[in-house]
């Protein structure tokens, strides 16, 4: 018997009726046509199918889609802003962090989940996060470097965003002090 699935993927709400045996990766690839999420081992061993569910990196080939009912999913397609790549994607390109690219979407999603939680991870912390990702072209070192580079890029973007806000805060404070007439200097 089919069951209802309400799911938000890359910010868009969807409503499906699916067989309970349907896996999350089938919803993503076959029903939504988002083929950036890859399947390789199909047994939870390679992490190519990694997507983010409610902020956490998970393997979409090993999760029943109905268990994600009401949750928010981000796939690789949800990262770029139009034709402008996400800083993590750009860092992967600039650091030569992939060759054939098959495992890359899973790697980038795991990196995204890590950087969202920990904006400045050490080399070791990146290793722990990426541990389950199998890359047969074996560019592991460059992947680690790309993620550290991505962290720097995201931090400087963040700083750029915060700067005007802080200025605002300061000027507001100054305006308040000026109004109250205390400590105007």
């Amino acid at each position: 018997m089919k069951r209802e699935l309400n799911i938000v993927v890359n910010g868009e709400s969807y409503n499906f009726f699916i067989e309970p045996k349907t896996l999350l990766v089938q919803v993503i690839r076959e029903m939504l046509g988002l083929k950036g999420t890859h399947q390789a081992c199909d047994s939870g061993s390679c992490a190519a199918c990694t997507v983010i569910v409610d902020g956490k990196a998970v393997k979409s080939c090993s999760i029943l889609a109905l268990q994600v009912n009401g949750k928010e999913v981000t796939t690789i397609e949800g990262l770029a802003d139009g034709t402008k790549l996400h800083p993590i994607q750009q860092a992967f390109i600039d650091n030569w962090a992939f060759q054939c690219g098959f495992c890359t979407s899973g790697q980038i999603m795991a990196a995204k989940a890590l950087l969202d939680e920990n904006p400045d991870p050490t080399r070791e912390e990146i290793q722990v996060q990426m541990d389950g990702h199998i890359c047969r072209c074996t560019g592991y070192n460059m992947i680690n470097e790309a993620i550290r580079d991505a962290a720097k890029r995201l931090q400087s973007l963040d700083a750029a965003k915060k700067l005007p806000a802080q200025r605002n805060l300061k000027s507001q404070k100054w305006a308040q002090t000026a109004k109250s007439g205390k400590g105007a200097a």
Partner: protein
Amino acid sequence: MKTITTDFEYLPATTLEEALELLSQHKDDEYRIIAGGQSLNTAMKHRLIAPEYIIDIKGLSDLDYIKFDAKRGLKIGALATHRSLEKSPIVREKYSVLCEMEENVASVETRNWGTVVGDLCNADPAVDPAAPLIALDAKLKVASKGKERIVPAEEFAVGFFETTVQPGEMATEIQIPVLPPNTGVYFTKYSQIHGDYALGSVAVLITLDKKKETCANARIGMSGVASTPIRAKKAEGVLKGKKITDEVLAAAAKVASEETSPISGIEASAEYKRELAGTLLKRVAKVALERAKKA
């Protein structure tokens, strides 16, 4: 591409009461309980099992907890994920061995979705949490409609992929007592690739006497070296009441090796695994001893 080919009826529960009701209704049916399903889904995809009903307990938020009480110890609810145990500050402080174990379970993605209790219920002979839980004298709460029973961690698995949990029952909680003073615990897992199931894993708890000289109590848990995780009781007996020296450890390792009953596989022979159990015991007990001295 592997998919689950056989249809099943999907029965989601949102509270423990609902889950136990579903279990009592379906206790004579071919059903499986799913929490994270990190092993179950793979087993279904590989056509190893094809249940008619899947009772989904992932939505049981009332069992998603890790609680510590200075008198009663640690309680881990059935829906607590591997990752939440690994990242729990109180677990890191009071039972660091569990965090060290978790860091070696599969990958971050699997730990994010899979549960500790579910892992134990899958009952792979090399299941990671079993050895440290046996060493920590943990117990599991098993519930059915209107009933509850408590099972020691070493008696939870009864055979190859088989547990004490009967039709109509489910494991709901892990209970770990407060560690006595002068106690150290350590765990090591040996696998070919980090995160794989262990070829062998050993956890040792050592409690020293007041003067911190002789071993007042020892508990040893092992995984991957028999059809279920085991408690190496005879090897514990070798350590108890003695000052732990290299000679005593060598004797305990020999006894522990004899307590195993591994089977040969493509990764290692039975003889190798038996040796491994002893070797790991020596290494792990040394660290546990150091920790007990500092505790």
